[in-house]
């Protein structure tokens, strides 16, 4: 309930005009009892004394028909308002959550959590939406129908009304009790379907391996087992669902027995008329469907609530790296130097990764950070760009501590080129325009030329209008990096942070990347997380990070003379390099 109130505050669309909608809902459910009421009227009045009073019957029927039409119109209006309100609210919630995910720090956006975050704004909201369109509206109208029918029954005969309710109560309770079992059965179906999709996926994604090792038979067996397990669990769940569904029918039969037996006895005593008795039989039918489908609807309501809670969970995650906004201090103009003072970093509930870094990087220098994987190089780069905040100490750019720099200033002046050079599924030009809005195709082409990539671009069929495909997969890994470099170039940053790719790139592209990097970093401050020592050789300054500390710094030549960790890294690399000719 508290969740619902919270949602109302987050997305006011949900509750907009709810009073009118509820009023319409009341009118719409009143329509459900028109038929029993008219039957009562016709039997008790229109046909009184064994004669048909046709005029009266006509009036009663026409009145009933008018009521049915009015309630149908109300129902149409209620549905339209309800769908508009819920879908608008959900759309708003989707966008809020989407934005919030982008505002979370890198800590929360790590690869292994991304799938989960995506489902928060997709399948979880979809679950709620589907619930609203089917079971949600059913629950609204079904409960209204039950209430209205019950009231009418009490008006006709309270004794009989109690008996009818009594015949449905145990079945209602039973189906509620069975609901967790049903829910578990559906959960099992989902799990089996997931496994089956995995097995089928292997036959597609792993096709070359399966073929090369001639293991088709074994693969087929695994798929068959998963397909069969899915079929069996689906059938088991269906059996349970049918069992629950029958509650309504059985209740109706019991209620009809009561109505006939007790109704006749009451009628003989003069407490119940023929019309009312028959009307009871019609009212009983109004209970069948709600009671039958209640368990399913409640099950879906629970799923929807759980999905809702997951969405709220994301919104409740605080944006730990906050934007000071207007109140902050923009970065000073010109190339930026960087300073680390007593910087420590540990992931939540993880060991400390950086143990007190003190460091000053001069403007316009090209810095290479080298060291073993896990030593803290990448963490250093993330702190420098405020993708995360240190657990202790301060990082400053151009003399301004990072937490005081408005994001608008920071993101404009400091640009990161990530390892995988992530591209969006659009054209090269549009991807480059991520670095600077409103850039023309000609300016994009000029950027490529400035990076020495004019020839490469010219070799593409559609030039800057070439589509890069999903995640840029129409281009090779190295070509994606070229586009990422152009994107960084048009952003014209004063500090450039590069995470060098580790994956193998074909050598011609590798050479292009190297020359583009050279052009890109010229005249700017740059910090490169280097995986190849050749990058360190070309840098103005090299930082060697090991065990969470900067253990050496200086030029390549100085460090080579010094030996130490750098000497060891270099020797290993050199041995490999000269292994052949």
């Amino acid at each position, binding site marked *: 309930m508290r969740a619902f109130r919270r949602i109302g505050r987050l997305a006011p669309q949900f509750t907009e005009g709810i009073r009118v909608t509820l009023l319409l809902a009341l009118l719409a459910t009143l329509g459900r009892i028109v038929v029993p009421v008219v039957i009562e009227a016709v039997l008790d009045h229109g046909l009184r004394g064994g004669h048909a009073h046709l005029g009266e019957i*006509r009036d009663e029927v026409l009145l009933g028909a008018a009521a049915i039409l009015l309630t149908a119109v109300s129902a149409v209006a209620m549905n339209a308002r309800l769908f508009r309100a819920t879908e608008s609210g959900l759309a708003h919630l989707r966008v809020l959550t989407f934005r919030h995910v982008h505002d979370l720090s890198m800590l929360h956006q790590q690869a292994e959590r991304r799938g989960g975050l995506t489902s928060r704004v997709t399948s979880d909201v979809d679950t709620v939406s589907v619930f609203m369109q089917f079971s949600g509206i059913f629950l609204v109208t079904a409960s209204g129908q039950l209430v209205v029918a019950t009231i009418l029954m009490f008006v006709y005969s309270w004794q009989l009304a109690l008996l009818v309710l009594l015949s449905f109560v145990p079945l209602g309770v039973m189906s509620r009790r069975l609901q967790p079992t049903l829910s578990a059965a559906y959960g099992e179906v989902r799990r089996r379907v997931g496994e089956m999709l995995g097995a089928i996926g292997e036959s597609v994604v792993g096709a070359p391996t399966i073929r090369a090792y001639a293991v088709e038979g074994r693969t087929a067996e695994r798929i068959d087992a998963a397909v069969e397990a899915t079929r069996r669990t689906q059938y088991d769940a269906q059996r349970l669902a049918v069992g629950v569904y029958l509650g309504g029918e059985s209740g109706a039969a019991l209620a009809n*027995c009561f109505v006939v037996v007790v109704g006749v006895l009451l009628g003989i005593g003069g407490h119940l008329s023929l019309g009312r008795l028959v009307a009871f039989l019609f009212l009983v039918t109004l209970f069948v469907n709600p009671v039958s489908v209640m368990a399913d609807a409640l099950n879906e309501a629970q799923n929807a609530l759980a999905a809702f809670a997951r969405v709220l969970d994301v919104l409740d995650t605080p944006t730990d790296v906050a934007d000071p906004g207007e109140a902050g201090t923009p970065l000073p103009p010109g190339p930026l130097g960087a300073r680390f003072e007593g910087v420590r970093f540990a992931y939540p509930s993880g060991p400390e990764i950086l143990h007190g870094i003190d460091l000053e990087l001069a403007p316009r220098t090209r810095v290479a950070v080298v060291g073993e994987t896990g030593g803290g190089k990448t963490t250093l780069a993330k702190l420098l760009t405020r993708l995360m905040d240190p657990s202790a100490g301060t990082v400053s750019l151009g003399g301004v501590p990072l937490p005081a720099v408005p994001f608008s200033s920071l993101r404009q002046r400091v640009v990161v080129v990530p390892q995988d050079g992530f591209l969006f599924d659009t054209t090269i030009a549009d991807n480059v325009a991520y670095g600077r809005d409103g850039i023309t195709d000609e300016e994009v082409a000029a950027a490529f030329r400035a990076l020495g990539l004019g020839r490469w671009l010219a070799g593409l069929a559609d030039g800057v209008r070439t589509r890069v495909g999903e995640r840029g997969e129409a281009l090779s890994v190295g070509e994606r990096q070229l586009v990422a470099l152009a994107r960084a170039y048009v952003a014209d940053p004063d500090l450039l942070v590069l995470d060098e790719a580790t994956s193998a790139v074909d050598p011609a592209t590798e050479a292009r990347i190297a020359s583009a990097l050279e052009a890109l970093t010229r005249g700017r401050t740059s910090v490169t997380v280097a995986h190849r020592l050749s990058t360190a050789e070309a840098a103005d300054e090299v930082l060697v990070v090991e065990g969470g500390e900067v253990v050496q710094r200086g030029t390549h030549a100085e460090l080579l003379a010094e030996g130490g960790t750098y000497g060891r890294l270099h020797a290993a690399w050199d041995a490999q390099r000269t292994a052949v000719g």
Partner: protein
Amino acid sequence: MDETGVLRRGAHVLAVSVREQPRLYAYAAGGSLVYGGMIVAQSYVLGAITGHVITPALRQHHTSAAALLISAAVILAAAGVKVTGIFGRRLGAGAMQYALQASYRRRVTRRYLTLPMSWHAARPTGELLNNANSDVEATWYPIAAFPFASGVAVIMVVVLVALLLTSLPLALVGCLVFPAVVAVNAFYARDMSPKVGRSQQLRAEVSGIAHESFDGALVVKTLGREDSETARFEARVNELRDALVAVGRLRGTFDPLLEAIPNLGVLAVLLVGAGRVDTATLVQVAYLFVLLAFPLRSIGWLLAEVPRSVNGWDRVQEVLTETAGMAYGSATLVPTTAGARLTARGVDFAYDGHAPVLRGIDLDLQPGRTVAVVGTTGAGKSTLTGLLVRLVDPGAGSIELDGTDLRELARGAVADHVALVAQQTFVFDDTVRGNVTLGADLSDDAVWAALRLARADGFVARIEHGLDAMLGERGTTLSGGQRQRLALARALVRTPRLLVLDDATSAVDTAVERAILDGLREETDATTLVVAYRKATIALADEVLWLDGGRIADRGSHADLLARHPGYAAIVSAYDTPAAP
């Protein structure tokens, strides 16, 4: 697709379902008939009770216990039989639907396992997964309503005939109401399916944007693109919202209409019947209309699913009727442990409808020798490795293993002697052991020996549960280098006589790669073909092939090629070139 075409083809799909599952269809349709029959019976029972028990009792202020007991017993009996009908209908339909899904999933995946790799290569993974999953599901989705609707159609005719025998005016009301419900349902289905299709499409697009945007979160964040990404997401979310509201509005309009029609029918029965038929008949027919309102809708549900079903069926049939296949001979090779000899003569290869990838390839791999293949991206290296293990057949020329053409060898015979380790490693959702043996009967000692040779024993020993650790989606995740070493062990455990490594150690540390290659050299007699970039890898080869533009441009020692081809030199030294100063 014109509408009648869809219905005709939908009828064909339904006919197939009956042909394949006649027993389950009989159960379900029989259940539906019983259910419908009992609805008619219930209305007769209530009519009779009204006429013979209630009316006289209320008029004479007297009744007999026997009359009441018989009434109750008949009501319960009718309900009991009806419940049996529901069981048969719903369980039968569920069993039929799930059995058909399972059967077609097996058939589709069987085709995947036998269709040639060139067929696989020409189709996106997502499409193949959909064929086996959602297309099969969509094809058989109408089965949930099909037996129900067939039973109801029969009952409807029976009811109309019965009404005709009772009273012509009442039959006329029936003739108006029943077809009206079916027709409105049909319109509903026709209007609904494009709207649902559109909302599903938009849902996929919204999900696509969320996936992409979160995958590229680093780029979005570091370029300060949160606002524009949110705007991009919001635009599509709003389209989805409008589409869902449109779906809701349609449902919200038709549902009240479908509810109003039978109710108006009941009123019409009262109007027309009063004075013409007795009270009992009036109650009976009115009750019948109320009870039939729900089953009549099944026809609408069936019609609603037909377009999707037909689409799914067409896509599934495309896979099932695909005739391409790979023919196998019956020859086998003499079992031996010595290295195999592989020769290729004038081999050409082109993917369907594309320019040739390989032209006039001549190869002679002598037993026990190691040959390296070097070439630029797109030179055809991976295609060549695929040909050697017969993932594809050459367009012209021949490839022989120990003097036997690969095409003459029996199914599985190539895999007995040749092992490929591909560039893209594939890890099955299985244990470490299962991933190495792929179900072959091999001892743990043999598995460990292969892991040792692939330098994978170290990390496997450190994983919890060792050989029994689950890998893949729901298991331990491995790094790229670990995956490659596991794939290598998978090849080595088979003691292949020809080992084909397609850039199979690209993600492995250079020092470890060196150790692996040295180990291979010392401990196996296998003939080896290795696609490589790194000098260290090439250094181990007895001969190097320089593949350029789909042809073997030159062959010789590393030093020879280095001297003769600037292109070759550029490639093999790219990794060793420091970034230009």
